[in-house]
């Protein structure tokens, strides 16, 4: 087998290898060097990782399994020191020599660092790889931290938006007069600036930097040309990239601004190829992904001795900042013989501009509404004569020929050669062909055609093509939105509430684009829980977003009356409490008194307006709300343990009471029931509870994730501990972990099935520091929420339980 050595595991070489293995899996034995200590990931998606919308794992393109499957010898974290083309060997940093039949350069580019004084201070970074991204995420973790981003281009703005979403104070310094000056005209640049300013990002255009100031080797401020000093803890330089051609130059290859390649991607040495950001082709260098993927196709063919030619094409640009929709393609500078068609809708923040020359579209800039971007881009690439449709051109494809303005119709109307996925150069015809060959969902289409596999902005379009082609057979993927008010899933919303620090319901509705004015009965209770769980001190609980049971602290019955269940700590009670319950039952004509499965007494059939009074009576006997109605801690069932039982090994009742006293009052994604059994005979049925403790001679067995409702499930063992203190600490940490991470209305067993018990063990059994941090956060929340709602309502809100007016009394008068 011939030997191929690849230098650099980036997106371009990764794509070239994919094509190579698809066509001829056994043609080459491949050795892959990468300076970064990892394989190929989707570098375009670093911005969503920075903002918290995605994780690194989600943007990995090739994992270990993929490399293993294709027999790639991976040498990650290793650089090549030199290349000896005469002997056809590469020499690794550690001195290893590897011979090659073909060598592929994919050395990419380096971020350009402006050589300002102070550019080597700690805290001055570029934005290029995962390390940079993690460094920024770390810096954003410091409360009140300030960041400066030099460079108002695509990358700089994505960095700024990501840092801002992580809560940093961000200022962007841009040399030119408007943002993204290479892709946008002034008007679109203005709208973008306005949108970013509204998010709290400070923008300074036409601004020149002079010096980076520091103390103790760490960045402290940026000094501008005009003498202004801007304090910062992090300075990100995002002013551009330079092709990384040093190794190729040392190896004696022809290098200009980058490594010279011909139309077949071959360098000045016929056995050495190059691909990606490190190449120069006909005087051009490349930074966007679409042409790199075209190059990768050509590389694979050339390696296999097939004919292929790389042709430079027009490229288009989209900014990946959630909520900022912009699109630009072609040439839009003013010039002789050029005409503009401009559409503005200031109220909606929409701006569209087409630049025409000789009845052809040569440039397009769109802001706020970019749905027709690909269609205009198609007109530019094809040089379509638009004289016939000039009057309605700006309104997009749906308005040509009187077709209705329906996105489905627009997609259906696209010709087969219309480009859908710009990153991967996939047109509608490719997707339709893939669908006809059996790819009937997004994942399958992505696997076959790669459409929507890179930056992902065309995902919706691909789904529309699926829908237009398959008709009713196409069902949108299983990621269920929270409700009709949003397309986001519960998981998305929870993550965004944390990462964007959304601390009120209006902030969620606004920032996450809710489609209704104030949510609905499905999303509001969930949002109320997520907000109070994540921001216990900042968020104000909203009773109007709670189901009636939690608003009136009683359980509504089918006739509109309520049930009242006082707490009996660990199932223990006294004659005095029982007498108070009996008196209350008689006084308020309670029709039904029932003993519950959770070891307490339920008074059923209480009228809503009597609730404050019955509560006040029960409070007098020391009884508080049992939260029998809440998504929160319900009961801690116990047996009598070593106090009385001849088999009891520990004080199960005492532990049950301690647990209940610690955990009561806390709100959780769904109800939580506990039990403590004094011996393995398990009289308290602890092994079917959300948290169940079984006492044994040597200590306590803690189980979690049991259920005895719609599903019946035995608990799984979280840990065995020796002391009561440890048992309480583990149960508390588990509660908080569940509160912070689970989807609303997922009982613990459902949540555990999603995240895995091993993950939970890592979080709270082995990582003691994290266990304590969770307990600390639980206790902060309890300072706000551990209070008896009955006493509070009986005292302060009794009025609201009564009719606003009683006309029966007036009639009697």
């Amino acid at each position: 087998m011939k030997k191929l050595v690849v230098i650099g595991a980036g997106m371009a070489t990764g794509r070239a290898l994919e094509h190579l293995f698809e066509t001829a899996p056994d043609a080459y034995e491949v050795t892959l060097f990468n300076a970064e200590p990892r394989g190929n990931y989707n570098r375009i998606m670093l911005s969503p990782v920075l903002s918290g919308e995605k994780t690194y794992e989600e943007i990995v393109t090739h994992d270990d399994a993929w490399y293993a499957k294709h027999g790639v010898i991976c040498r990650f974290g290793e650089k090549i020191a030199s290349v000896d083309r005469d002997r056809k060997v590469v020499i690794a940093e550690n001195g290893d020599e590897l011979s090659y039949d073909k060598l592929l350069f994919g050395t990419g580019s380096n971020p350009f660092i402006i050589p300002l004084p102070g550019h080597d201070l700690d805290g001055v970074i570029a934005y290029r790889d995962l390390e940079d991204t993690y460094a920024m995420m770390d810096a954003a973790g410091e409360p009140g931290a300030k960041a400066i981003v030099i460079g108002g281009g695509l990358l700089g703005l994505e960095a700024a938006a990501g840092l801002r979403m992580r809560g940093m104070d961000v200022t962007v310094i841009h040399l030119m007069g408007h943002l993204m000056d290479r892709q946008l005209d002034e008007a679109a640049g203005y709208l973008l600036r306005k949108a970013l300013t509204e998010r709290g990002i400070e923008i300074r255009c036409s601004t020149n930097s002079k010096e980076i100031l520091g103390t103790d080797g760490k960045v402290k401020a940026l000094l501008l040309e005009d003498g202004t000093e801007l304090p910062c803890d992090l300075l990100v330089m995002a002013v551009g990239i330079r092709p990384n051609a040093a190794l190729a130059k040392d190896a004696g290859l022809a290098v200009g601004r980058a490594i010279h390649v011909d139309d077949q991607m071959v360098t000045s040495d016929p056995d050495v190829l190059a691909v990606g950001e490190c190449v120069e082709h006909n005087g051009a260098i490349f930074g966007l992904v679409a042409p790199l993927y075209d190059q990768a196709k050509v590389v694979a063919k050339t390696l296999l001795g097939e004919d292929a030619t790389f042709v430079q094409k027009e490229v288009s640009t989209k900014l990946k900042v959630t909520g900022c929709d912009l699109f630009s393609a072609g040439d839009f500078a003013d010039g002789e013989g050029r005409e503009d068609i401009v559409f503005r809708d200031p109220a909606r923040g929409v701006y569209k501009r087409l630049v025409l020359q000789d009845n052809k579209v040569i440039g397009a800039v769109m802001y706020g509404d970019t749905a027709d971007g690909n269609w205009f881009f198609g007109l530019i690439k094809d040089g379509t004569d638009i004289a016939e449709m000039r009057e309605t051109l700006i309104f997009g494809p749906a308005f040509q020929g009187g077709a209705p303005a329906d996105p489905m119709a627009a997609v259906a109307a696209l010709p087969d050669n219309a480009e859908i996925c710009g990153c991967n150069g996939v047109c509608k015809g490719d997707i339709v062909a893939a669908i006809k060959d059996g790819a009937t969902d997004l994942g399958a289409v992505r696997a076959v055609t790669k459409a929507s596999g890179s930056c992902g902005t065309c995902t919706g379009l691909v789904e529309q093509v699926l829908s237009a082609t398959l008709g009713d057979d196409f069902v949108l993927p299983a990621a269920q939105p929270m409700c009709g008010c949003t397309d986001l899933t519960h998981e998305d919303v929870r993550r965004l509430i944390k990462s964007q620090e959304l601390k009120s319901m209006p902030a969620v509705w606004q920032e996450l684009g809710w489609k209704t004015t104030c949510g609905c009965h499905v999303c509001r209770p969930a949002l109320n829980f997520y907000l109070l769980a994540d921001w216990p001190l900042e968020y104000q609980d909203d009773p109007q977003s709670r189901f009636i049971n939690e608003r009136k602290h009683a359980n509504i019955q089918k006739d509109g009356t309520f049930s009242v269940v006082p707490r009996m700590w660990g199932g223990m009670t006294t004659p005095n409490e029982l007498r108070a319950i009996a008196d209350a039952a008689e006084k308020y004509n309670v029709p039904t008194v029932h003993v519950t499965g959770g070891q307490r007494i339920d008074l059923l059939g209480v009228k809503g307006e009597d609730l404050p009074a019955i509560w006040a009576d029960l409070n007098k006997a020391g009884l508080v709300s049992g939260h029998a109605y809440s998504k929160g801690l319900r009961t801690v069932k116990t047996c009598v343990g070593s106090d009385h039982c001849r088999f009891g090994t520990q004080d199960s009742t005492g532990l049950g009471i301690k647990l209940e006293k610690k955990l009561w009052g806390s709100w959780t994604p769904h109800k939580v029931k506990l039990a403590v059994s004094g011996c393995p005979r398990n009289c308290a049925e602890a092994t079917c509870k959300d948290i169940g403790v079984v006492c044994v001679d040597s200590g306590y067995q803690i189980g979690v994730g049991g259920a005895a409702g719609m599903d019946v499930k035995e608990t799984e063992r979280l840990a065995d501990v020796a002391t009561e203190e440890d048992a309480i600490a583990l149960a508390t940490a588990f509660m908080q972990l569940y509160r912070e991470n689970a989807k609303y209305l997922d009982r613990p067993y459902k949540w555990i099935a999603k995240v895995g018990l091993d993950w939970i063990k890592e979080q709270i059994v082995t990582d003691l520091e994290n266990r304590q941090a969770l307990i600390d956060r639980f206790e902060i929340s309890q300072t706000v929420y551990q209070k008896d709602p009955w006493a509070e309502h009986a005292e302060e809100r009794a009025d609201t339980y009564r009719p606003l007016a009683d006309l029966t009394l007036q009639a009697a008068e």
Partner: protein
Amino acid sequence: MTNWLDIGPLDAIAPRGARVVRTEHGCVAIFRTAEDEVFALEDRCPHKAGPLSDGIVHGKSVTCPLHNWVISLETGLAQGADKGATPTVAARVENGRVLLDAEYLKARSAA
């Protein structure tokens, strides 16, 4: 011309909340939206007579606490796939006071 009966202050009803007026023949529910509009309906879901005043108010609808039927506050009609209607009562706000249709309430009390 509608005769209006002053029921009480608007402030007594929480935004996105409700209170009831008791009459001889069941309660009338008064709803206040986030935009401070006021609507009144019989406090009885067309499905199983659930107390709509205990529901969650969203937009110009209320969700019944018993089985999540969504009822329009403007028309009293069940939304979505559910079919049914709850009678509406004319209501308005004037100088921070909630006013209901006096004739309707009188008819209920006398009937």
